[in-house]
């Protein structure tokens, strides 16, 4: 490492300015944050000390990102206090917190794609009315590059840099602002192993200078390679709080991540008869798109295949390819032996593959249209019935699926989340589909609605459909699935059979092979 740029740390030395006696640069106490009915964080504490790397572990929806966003000023807590460098934070504003030394490197980057790397630096921390010349800007960039060993090209617009380079640039930008508290959200998710290792090395160096680093991750290897302390969140609460990594095992952390056993609100299928209907009803062969690399899946009629995994491992791509929304780079999807035409949603429906989208408001419904019209989406006949007839005809479906609304003429935007999802089900599952692609079907729903939706999907399977259920909550998948596979790192791990071993699943999701795996 070459000489590093001037830093506030030079003047103060680690831990001497603004830190408490325990060396804590950040103390978050009792942080609570709710989004409507969802309790994202329930009285969470987090302490970040200078010179330490702190890992934040947890499964989807545990609250890690919310916590970090609050610290960065992008969100505010409903209750609790945040002390930064010994002083309480009064204003949760990104610019203010950035100027106080907190930097957040998020998963989606906030670079201006048409500016070069050095220009992006200048934009983030301008030096007055005039911008420095190209040479001076480049020097600023190069100083940081030399100091960290992270290389970024300056001769192309930032939009053309590789994902790894973009992330390095984000990190350099944070350092340029001389951040004392660095927060990284899933930093290695988009990096190769080599890049990840470089990154962790840099983090160690930065920490050694007295900065406090925290990174969100779901990869256990990183926790053990890179972190000094760990906090595990589950459902908005701390399961393991601010403990030394050295005091734990991989398996222990994995279990903690998955969380306690839920109270079993989901329909339990363990007692189901396993008489088989049609074998290989829904088949995915060699599918490649985005994160997915030539994956194969098979679901028999009457079977529910649960697809588990941490967000960002290809679920979105799988959904896009199977729903015919995107055309895959390679591979195919077939229902009852008929290959679905890529990019043709009507063909998908005609062949009997129902699609419950992960984002019902973007892909499933048209908010401004009435319920009766939404029920027709994807199956609109060439000549539609009169509006009154359409509305009348939809009443039966709305009742059958218990969609509570002001009537078939109401706009879809007036429905609550649960009822909107039931509307989607009413449309998709009407008419005995041969296969169902359900993507996070209970996401964002209150427990009652979630239960209803899950029950309906299960009964679909009982009627002989092949159900592919992409889920986030492991409890849900454990309860309904006949088999479970895990998407990790672009490929499929599994299958796992009941009785399910949570630890093994957790390890698979965290990217670790367990002893049972071939």
């Amino acid at each position, binding site marked *: 490492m070459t000489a590093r740029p001037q830093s506030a740390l030079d003047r103060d030395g680690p831990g001497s300015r603004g830190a408490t006696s325990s060396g804590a640069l950040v103390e978050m106490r009792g942080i609570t944050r709710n989004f409507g009915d969802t309790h994202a964080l329930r009285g969470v504490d987090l302490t970040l000390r200078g010179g330490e790397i702190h890992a934040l572990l947890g499964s989807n*929806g545990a*609250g890690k*990102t919310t916590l970090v966003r609050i610290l960065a000023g992008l969100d505010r807590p409903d209750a609790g206090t945040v002390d930064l460098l010994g002083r309480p934070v009064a204003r949760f504003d990104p610019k203010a917190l950035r100027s106080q030394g907190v930097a957040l490197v998020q998963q989606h980057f906030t670079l201006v794609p048409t500016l070069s790397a050095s220009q992006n630096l200048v934009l983030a921390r301008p030096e007055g009315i005039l911008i420095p010349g190209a040479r001076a800007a480049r020097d600023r960039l190069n100083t940081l590059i030399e100091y960290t060993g992270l290389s970024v090209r300056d001769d192309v617009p930032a939009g053309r840099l590789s994902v790894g380079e973009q992330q390095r640039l984000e990190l350099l930008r944070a350092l340029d602002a001389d951040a004392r508290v660095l927060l990284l959200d899933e930093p290695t998710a988009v990096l190769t192993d080599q890049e990840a290792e470089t990154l962790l090395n840099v983090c160690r160096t930065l920490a050694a200078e007295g900065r406090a680093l925290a990174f969100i991750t779901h990869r256990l290897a990183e926790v053990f390679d890179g972190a000094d302390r760990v906090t595990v969140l589950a459902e908005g609460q701390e399961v393991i709080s601010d403990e030394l990594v050295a005091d734990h095992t991989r398996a222990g952390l994995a279990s903690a991540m998955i969380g306690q056993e839920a109270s079993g609100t989901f329909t339990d299928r363990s007692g189901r008869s396993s008489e088989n209907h049609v074998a290989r009803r829904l088949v995915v062969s060699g599918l490649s798109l985005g994160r997915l690399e030539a994956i194969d899946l098979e679901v028999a009629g009457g079977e529910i295949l649960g697809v588990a995994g941490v967000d960002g491992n290809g679920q979105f791509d799988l959904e896009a390819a199977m729903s015919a929304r995107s055309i895959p780079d390679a591979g195919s999807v077939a229902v009852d032996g008929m290959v679905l035409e890529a990019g043709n*949603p009507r063909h998908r429906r005609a062949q009997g593959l129902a699609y419950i989208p992960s984002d019902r408001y973007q892909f499933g419904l048209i908010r401004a249209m009435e319920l009766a019209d939404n029920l027709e*989406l994807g199956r*609109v006949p060439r000549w539609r019935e009169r509006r009154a007839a359409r509305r009348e005809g939809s009443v039966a479906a709305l009742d059958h699926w218990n969609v509570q609304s002001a009537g078939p003429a109401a706009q879809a935007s007036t429905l609550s989340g649960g009822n909107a999802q039931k509307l989607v089900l009413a449309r998709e599952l009407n008419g005995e589909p041969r296969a169902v692609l359900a993507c996070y079907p209970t996401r964002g729903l209150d427990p009652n609605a979630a239960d209803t939706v899950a029950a309906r999907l299960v009964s679909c399977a009982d009627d002989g459909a092949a159900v592919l259920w992409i889920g986030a909550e492991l409890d849900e998948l454990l309860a309904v699935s006949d088999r479970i596979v895990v998407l990790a790192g672009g490929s499929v791990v599994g299958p796992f059979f009941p009785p399910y071993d949570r630890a093994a699943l957790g390890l698979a999701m965290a990217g670790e092979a367990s002893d049972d795996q071939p």
Partner: protein
Amino acid sequence: MTATVTPTEPAEETPGLLARIAHRATAGGPINQVLVPLAAVVAALVVGAVFITFDGSNPLLVYREIVSAVFTGRRGFSDTATAATPLILIGLGYAIAYRARVFTIGAEGQYLVGAVVGTAWVTAGGISDMPRFPLIMSGLLLAALGGALWSMLAGWLGVRFGANIVISSLMLVYVAEAVLAWAVRDGIKDPDSFVNQSRQIGPATLPDLPGTSTHIGFALAVLLVPVAAVLMARHRGGFRVTAYGHNPSALDANEVRSKTVVLLVMVIAGALAGLAGMVETAGVSGRLGAQASVNLGFEAIIVALLGRLNPVGVLFAGLSLAGLTIGFESAQREFDLPSSLVGVITALIVVFVVVGDALASRGKEAA
């Protein structure tokens, strides 16, 4: 992808103003559809009254003259109907395109291309000997085809290459003007004329509606209104157009590739504009000259907006605007008013519609 905690309420989507107008137009009750444009018209008339008073005349008398010029006397209504015809035709096209939130502004160009193609066909040697009915029909059809292709060009550039449809459709207007200039000077020029214009279209002239002095183009425009209304309300294509305007992603995931909808509306808008071009040439001017289009394209945008992107609304808006213009011509002579005043009032109407909707939705947001 960020691990998310999904809020239970749907993420607030705050669309732009025309989106809100279109939203109200399709989802709001009849009161909403009529109230804002009506209020805008009234407001514009009030401002116009101020100007008229400034000029020394009594606004009430002026407005009464306008109304009487339009309604009493067959001449008045015939003129209004004739003036309204191209506005309605082009306005229908715009209404459909804007429902899909495809903001093409190239109708002027499609109009001209349609006129050139149609006129070239019916004045060509050999063709002009055809019996009258097939001659007229084929001329109109080819004109519509020409306009459709011209519009498709902009649509294709947008869908295939991502070119901004607003700008590309506008550029094609200018290219069309150049095509027109060449056509009347060289391509289809009347050899017996000193002025740059095409031959007389003679037998292809549109006949008048029996008993009136209005050409049948008006009847065609009026007939197309319920056709468009039915197609939008009851045909699958109409559903797709409206759905695309609201949420193209949902369409992609469930119904049809959304690009086809863009091309569809561009074709329809172009065909209608091209048709209007030939209708005007064959019904009004009798031949194609260098000054073929007088801002019709932009006036039609006003008609579409005033009509709330609704075919029936377009009909009323087209008639109203034409009536205002025709009636004003008479009042202007009577009261010695500046001829540009009617343009001011018309423009104020659409500005007030835009402002009115802005105020309405800010009020809704604050509520």
